[in-house]
């Protein structure tokens, strides 16, 4: 199918779902803005979803994790995940959603590595055990460490999704019984980090679209995080911020003051130390985010937050 026809079919499908071209462009504008690109890129973003020439190959690896990041990815709306998987990307390997299993699954990984050597995007979810040669986590008889060492260096780019793949995550919290590390640290290589527990799918999709659109990965901070999503603190963007300035602090969780939108700082909120776009992007199609739900931020996109930010209910 040529490009124009594909585009037409794409909009037709959207229309059948009750999504107008206008809604779709609104999403593209939102995504473009989230990525911090100028408005001139909006049509380019739309094109990425509507008519890719060849779907870019993705190999998605699971190590020590809870699959919450994959689940977060499944929650993406406009574009829906079926569009990402069927029309935008070519997901060659993803243990949670792939139809094949066992030998056939392993074959898929090997054939994708061969076919797309140096071309594929590698998405990593989960931490890698490094203690005793990584004996505590295996796939198909190989340790996570062996699998990562085989796959990651051959990727065009490695995107670490979630706190575990970025910085080790919950299993790396003290005393880190399994010697778990983030992918970049375990392999001593540079990764693009999309932390969060789980990260907002808009940031996962935004990073991938950024790559498809501009042919390069977005600019990163010193912790490897894209600046478009992790450039400001939660505190600076928080709707409760004005109460902070006024010295209006909720005295307890669920209190009348918390209901009125007062600041959660004295209940342990880690917003001032945490870089993420939760207050503006929000989760699940803009439904809410933890501070809106009256719970202090626990700082889940900061390196080693499980140790660094806890105990969570004690003020900083």
């Amino acid at each position, binding site marked *: *199918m040529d490009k124009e026809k594909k585009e037409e079919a794409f909009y037709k*499908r959207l229309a059948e779902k009750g999504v107008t071209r206008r809604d779709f462009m609104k999403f593209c504008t939102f995504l473009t803005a989230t990525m911090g690109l100028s408005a001139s890129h909006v049509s380019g973003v739309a094109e990425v979803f509507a008519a890719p020439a060849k*779907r870019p190959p993705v190999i998605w690896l699971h190590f*020590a*994790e*809870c*699959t*919450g*990041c994959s*689940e977060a990815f*499944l*929650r993406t*709306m406009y574009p829906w*995940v079926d569009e990402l998987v069927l029309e935008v990307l*070519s*997901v060659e390997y*993803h*243990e*949670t959603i*792939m*139809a*094949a*299993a*066992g030998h*056939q*699954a*392993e074959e898929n990984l090997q054939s994708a590595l061969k076919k797309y050597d140096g071309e594929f995007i590698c998405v990593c979810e989960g931490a890698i055990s490094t*203690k*005793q040669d990584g004996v*505590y986590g*295996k*796939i*198909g008889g190989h340790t996570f460490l062996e699998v990562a060492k085989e796959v990651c260096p051959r990727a065009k780019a490695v995107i670490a999704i979630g706190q575990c793949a970025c910085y080790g995550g*919950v*299993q790396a*919290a*003290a005393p*880190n*019984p*399994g010697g*778990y590390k983030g992918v970049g640290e375990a392999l001593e290589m540079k990764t693009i980090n999309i932390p969060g527990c*789980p990260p907002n799918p808009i940031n996962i999709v935004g990073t991938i679209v950024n790559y498809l659109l501009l042919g390069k990965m977005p600019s990163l901070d010193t912790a490897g995080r894209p600046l478009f999503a992790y450039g400001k603190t939660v505190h600076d963007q928080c709707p409760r911020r004005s109460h902070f300035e006024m010295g209006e602090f909720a005295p307890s*969780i*669920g209190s*009348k003051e918390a*209901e009125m*939108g007062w600041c959660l700082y004295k209940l342990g909120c880690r917003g001032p130390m945490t870089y993420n776009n939760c207050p503006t992007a929000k989760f*699940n*199609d803009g439904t*809410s*985010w*933890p*501070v809106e*739900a*009256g*719970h202090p931020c626990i700082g889940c996109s900061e390196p080693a937050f499980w140790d660094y930010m*806890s*105990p*969570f*209910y004690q003020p900083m």
Partner: protein
Amino acid sequence: MSKRITIDPMTRLEGHLRIEVEVSDGKVVNAWSSGQMFRGIEIILQGRDPRDAHHFVQRSCGVCTYVHSLSSVRAVEDAAGIDIPENAKLVRRLLHGAQFMHDHIVHFYHLHALDWVDVVSALKADPKKTAKLANNVSKAPWGGTAYYKSVQDRLKTFVDSGQLGILKNAYWGHSAYKLPPEANLIASAHYIEALRLQAKTARLHAIFGGKNPHPQSLVVGGVSSVKDLSPDRIAEFQYIWKESQDFVRNVYIPDILAVASFYKDWGGIGGTSNFLAWGDFAQNGKEPDSYLMPRGFIKDRDLENPRQVDTEKVAEHVKRSWYEGSTARHPYEGETKPTPGDYEPDDGKYSWIKAPRYDTESSEVGPLSRVLVAYANGQPQVKKAVEDVLKQLDVPASALFSTLGRTAARGIETLVIGEAMDGWINDLVANVKKGDKKVCQEFEMPDEAMGYGLNDVPRGALGHWIQIKNKKVDRYQYVVPPTWNFGPRCAEGKLGPVEESLIGTPIADPKKPLEVLRTVHSFDPCIACAVHMIDPDSNEVYQVRAT
């Protein structure tokens, strides 16, 4: 001659699982289930603030998100003697119901369906006939020849692109696939519809929990989302609940029945013998008396004599797991000395998962156990739903003890729990109308205390136990559904439930063990949380006394 087949990685599940079966004369004669990862979260919790524990344990699983957080705050509340406010009980119950709804829909359509549905065969379907068939079997709000044609075109474009992605190299064309092309096309279309619906259903968690996965509104003492107890927020919840429950009634249940009607032989494959349920959903707050899904134990498939549950009858074996020792112990008095070693399924150790037994028997947990316990106890909603399904499929009650029964039970309880949620929404409205906005109970953390929280969660019976010393976590232990289902052999050599269920499974092609996938997936494997309790270096001994 017998032949060993290994499936590793098992896919379409959470965690890292290895399944090995021995096949002789076209049938499975032996089976081994092995957990392939450990993380050590219980060790990590030691010395931390008990109020923080639920954040850590929630990260045991992002598929069955929320549930560990729930059992954890309940364990601390039990230890500290906290009675949480009515609003908190209702919000928690609604979040729990939403988790069942979301989790079971995703399991059926995205983790399990491809074991029964041949997507490639759907390309051969006649869209017109498909539309007609769909009208007969489902009350889906979409349909028609044009709709099915567009879905088929979309799949065709995908396949013709030569980039098969997630559909590549599966068992398409396998002789065990029985659906006609038209039914395969309907199911493929519903796979996509359900993929979209689940993103909406997950918003139920975001409304009162801030986000999903890993909602963040539970706290020891109640919930935090006081601002969301507003008329517009509750209405938003009710709206999404209705859309989701309509899908369950009009699409999910009819799809199970339609698919099952082609696979009735699976009503005699994949069964186990004993069934355990802690029960859940206290309708009037009284536990366990008012549980919508009751507590109980069924031995040897005896539905006439459902038994009471005694938690003292739980014992965990380690003889065939990578831990020292061979004595079966009550989990709270047990010791854990890890001995990482080789995979030796024949006579040695072969899994990171321990082998829990109830009253010395291996016991299945999960939807089938809950539905059987409810059915045997005459729970009216479950009894009616079960009888409707048996009647429609024209199969006897004995067909429940099977892979098919397990998959049907998951749908049945989604329907029953989903219907009950409507009442809980109304209860929440009534309570807020009275002017009650209290969501959280203040408390003092005790210096020393112990407590536990039991729940029945989408994959089965879950319990968290905590000991507090100097206001900190001294000991923490959780016994989770996949430990029950996917555990290995015990000291007496009795097989774990999944191992038992695989014996006798017909295998048409040992190179493509599709039939094994069916039964394993019917348990909804979720393995990361099953292995979480050891320290490989210090070989520390854990002892938690029974309460």
